[in-house]
């Protein structure tokens, strides 16, 4: 089955610095990749998803590029904001009824 590996634990950085959260995947098929974000006491919600035509998805300043050669879909942002502090999940789907999530990476942005 599909599996996702992402930066574990807590990533702490100062406001204004670039963000990069790693995500790699394993799948028998050509999966779709997603990043979900969960703010404190809220539901996880979609941040980005991969395109079939290799376009780079962007949302709220975040972007991610699907590299099939390295099975990666790292999340990046050029300048972190305090409001970016949240839990980020990378997810993978190659099956219509099952989305597999990584372990989650907590991002803490400090002033």
């Amino acid at each position, binding site marked *: 089955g599909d599996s996702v590996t992402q930066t574990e634990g807590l990533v702490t950085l100062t406001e204004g610095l670039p963000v990069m959260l790693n995500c790699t995947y394993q799948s028998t098929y050509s999966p779709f990749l*997603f990043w979900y974000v969960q703010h404190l006491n809220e539901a996880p919600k979609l941040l980005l998803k991969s395109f079939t035509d290799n376009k780079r998805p962007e949302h709220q300043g975040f972007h991610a590029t699907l590299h099939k050669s390295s099975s990666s879909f790292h999340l990046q942002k050029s300048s972190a904001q305090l409001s970016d502090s949240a839990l980020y999940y990378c997810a993978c*789907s190659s099956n*219509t*009824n099952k*989305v597999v999530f990584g372990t*989650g990476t907590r991002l803490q942005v400090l002033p």
Partner: protein
Amino acid sequence: ETAVFQTPNYHVTQVGNEVSFNCKQTLGHDTMYWYKQDSKKLLKIMFSYNNKQLIVNETVPRRFSPQSSDKAHLNLRIKSVEPEDSAVYLCASSWDSANTEVFFGKGTRLTVV
């Protein structure tokens, strides 16, 4: 804007009791899910239903049983809860496609004492 509704928000119960959680989605989606988010924030799928039919049933204890009356509702019953069942249970829904967004409810936090 919330479109996946879960009740209750919180539930505290004793070991051995039975609990039921409700979930309704108003998005017209074909597929609904139950996920368990544990204290380490691991998010693991438990069940997946497509048009009222069970599609995915991960390895969960038999005391967990999903119930679906129609494609907009998916409830979860836990018979005889145990301490390790303490977690946040997230209901979700999506269209029946691999490249589709999953919409989550806010979750039900279960504490077993």
